[in-house]
């Protein structure tokens, strides 16, 4: 049997379970994700920086971890909480077990706890700080550390996860084609089969606040040639690259702690350049357009959030991961809320009525999650083309 682990919450609750992954202690905001698949993408999504992620689905690790389905260069969350870890890996693409993968990045995991009780607590009391230890800390020590952590509000994690240098995304087109399952005759390396792509003829700049690779893949699939720039790049430096449009990425932490970035976005907004934002990018854009953000009680994290497009009436099942939202009442009249969450009516999308600007709170790039919203990348292409 594995060694013991414990998860302590700032409200004094302690869960005892089994350790897996790294022998370490992690402190951060305990949140939960309701996706039944996609733990690998969740682990490697930089937006989870500073968070201890609980999976509501109980059987985790079944299909292992592979070298293709990564959303960034490493795993980012502070700790990982699950009900039951699969003792083996069963999938034709698996390269590692989940435990090996977490160990590689120094992330501690806890299994064998009542994740349903934990999630119910988080739903009632809201996401709260926690301390996950596989190093044998005492419960009292772990609770004290969780309490000392403070809050997600006011935290800037973007500076920690953004790339330090600007780079061109996948100039050789090695990683951007849509993943395909093999068909009919099986190729030599069936896992590498990817769909062909159009020429990369539209140059854009993508701000990296904790950018997921699948956004870059989707942009490439729509013919964008993307230059990724660090989060603190000035608007002037972005414009020097003469992009046809600007993309604002997802990312971790509190959007209200990023005032300097909001100012640069405001400058870009004023130039009239086409802008598309996702998640944190949407929240920053919301602020740049004059709105405010607020913290949700326990956030939206999962792959089944229904979003209604108020213009078309269509409903998209979306992938989401956010703990903050844009306050609809704070927005000026030229910014229209064009998408809402059908569960709690919060803002899911904004469109500027006169400028070529739109953004969504959810993740149209999925990974993990449903592909219903992929057409948004085509919408961005249309928008940029119209303004070119």
């Amino acid at each position, binding site marked *: 049997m594995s060694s013991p682990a414990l998860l302590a919450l700032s409200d004094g609750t302690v869960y005892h379970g089994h350790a897996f992954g790294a022998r370490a202690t992690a402190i951060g905001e305990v949140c939960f994700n*309701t*996706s*039944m*698949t*996609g733990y*690998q*993408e969740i682990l490697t999504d930089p937006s989870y920086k500073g968070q201890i992620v609980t999976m*509501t*689905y*109980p*059987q985790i690790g*079944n*299909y292992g971890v*592979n070298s*293709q*389905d990564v959303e960034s260069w490493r795993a980012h969350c502070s700790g990982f909480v699950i*009900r*039951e870890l*699969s*003792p*083996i890996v*069963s*999938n*034709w*693409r698996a390269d590692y077990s989940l435990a090996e993968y977490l160990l590689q990045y120094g992330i501690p995991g806890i299994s064998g706890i009542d*994740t*349903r009780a934990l*999630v119910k607590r988080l739903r009632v009391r809201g996401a709260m700080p926690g301390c996950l230890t596989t190093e044998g800390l005492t419960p009292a020590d772990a609770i004290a550390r969780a309490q000392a952590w403070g809050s997600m509000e006011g935290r800037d994690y973007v500076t920690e996860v953004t790339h330090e240098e600007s780079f061109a995304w996948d100039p050789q087109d090695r990683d951007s084609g849509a*993943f*395909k*399952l*093999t*068909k*009919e*005759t*099986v190729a030599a390396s*069936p*896992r590498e089969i990817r769909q062909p792509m159009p020429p990369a003829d539209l140059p854009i700049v993508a701000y990296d606040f904790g950018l997921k690779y699948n956004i870059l893949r989707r942009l490439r699939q729509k013919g964008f040639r993307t230059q990724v720039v660090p989060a603190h790049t000035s608007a002037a430096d972005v414009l020097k690259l003469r992009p046809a449009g600007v993309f604002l990425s997802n990312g971790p932490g509190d959007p209200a702690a990023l005032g300097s970035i909001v100012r640069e976005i405001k400058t870009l907004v004023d130039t009239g350049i086409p802008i598309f934002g996702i998640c944190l990018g949407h929240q920053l854009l919301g602020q740049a357009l004059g709105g405010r953000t607020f913290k949700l009680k326990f956030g939206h994290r*999962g*792959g*089944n*959030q*229904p979003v*209604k497009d108020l213009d078309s*009436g*269509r*409903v998209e*099942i979306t992938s989401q991961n956010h703990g903050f939202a844009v306050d609809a009442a704070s927005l000026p009249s030229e910014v229209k809320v064009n998408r809402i969450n*059908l*569960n709690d009516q919060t803002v899911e999308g904004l469109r500027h009525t006169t400028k070529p600007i739109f953004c969504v709170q959810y993740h149209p790039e*999925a*990974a*993990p*999650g*449903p*592909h219903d919203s992929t057409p948004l990348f085509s919408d961005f292409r249309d928008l940029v083309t119209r303004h070119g």
Partner: protein
Amino acid sequence: MPKRTDIHSVLIIGAGPIIIGQACEFDYSGTQACKALREEGYRVILVNSNPATIMTDPEFAERTYIEPITPECVEKIIVREKAEMARMGATGKLVLLPTLGGQTALNTAMTLHRQGVLEKHGIEMIGAKAEAITKGEDRETFKQLMLTIGLDVPISGTAHTIQEARQVAERIGRYPLIIRPGFTLGGTGGGIAYNREEFEEIAKRGIDLSPVSEILVEESLLGWKEYEMEVMRDRADNCVIICSIENFDPMGVHTGDSITVAPIQTLTDKEYQIMRDASFAVIRAVGVETGGSNIQFSVNPENGRMIVIEMNPRVSRSSALASKATGFPIAKIAAKLAVGYLLDEIRNDITRETPASFEPTIDYVVTKIPRFAFEKFPQADPTLTTQMKSVGEAMAIGRTFKESFQKCLRSLEIGRSGLGGDGKPWRIGAEMIDDRAIFPRELINRRLSVPNAERVFFLRHAFRAGYSLEDVFQLTKIDRWFLIQIEELVKFEEELAALKN
């Protein structure tokens, strides 16, 4: 879009007598549909020859016909009800909802359509149009349709000579191969060839036996993983997956006879989403406008190649399971979608606050295990094949697969408390074997390699007899993830037994 106001009465065809493959699950869905439609103020007319159903209780329909489910009879009912509606001065139409009564209802509706009866009386089919039903039900049409939308189907080819047959076999490139002679009664003369010698023999025999000297040679998917998706669509083309299902038993066993598990356990998100996209592509291509469909896939465990097996353009056995597994009432919602509602206009029964346009996500595992009654049919061959033989099923929910699996075995009412270790002896043929006895390898090998009703228990017997996970996998092709769960249960049984000593 609100509900349709041009409809006055809805005719629902039930599933009729209980037979293997079509039992009370269709009563469950039909009853839900009747309630949903009456709630909306429609007049419900029901025909079902089986009075031992809930749906034929007087309160579920305005008019209940306990009459044979035949095209002739349904036509008479249509004539009578149209006259009745005229007498009532009804302004709306009489429509037919054929997708809730299993295959019987669907076939009856299709016969009425082909005979021109529906057209003659001006009866519209709601839920699924005749064209969509044909596309979904006719194997060859469906296969061609799948190829046109870029999905994969089993590789096959027809041959009229042994040379042609060899060419097809070469193109497919691996054994086993399935050989089906054309136009022989019940497919006599066909078979599965595991090597070249067998292939030559069966192919020759097939060509000889076929009156048109034609055989179909098809790649075999035996041993591949099998999956199901429960899809719903509304008339604004909103599509959602209600439930994904992974079969414990690999391809070769009828889904109704397979142990099935929800949700899918061994696909990554990338693979799952490709299957989800494919499910929507299928329901759109087949043209099921509103309601639920069940789509079956097979995946090669070696390389992930995904094949579309079939789709049911109607509420199916799996829909009843998916409804109970997720709390999403598929038949009820399907009935409301059929009369024009959109998914986001219908409330979710569980939360009561959020709309039905969502995909249930669960924090538990659901297992269904079929119940067999071979003791009542001593002449029947207990081997499980592509023809359904189970007479019922149990379903259980647990926080882990192991918990739901054990609860489900206990719920079968076959006297066992789970996988074993309950102290009760095992009846194997005429012999009684003690619960904790080690079974002979020869018997274990036989019972594992050929799917049968007791195979699940022989997984335990095999692990207890010292078989490795790999041994059991090679004999059964049951996914290693399921096998390790069983092995862990067996290990725990041993731990408990050791405590007793």
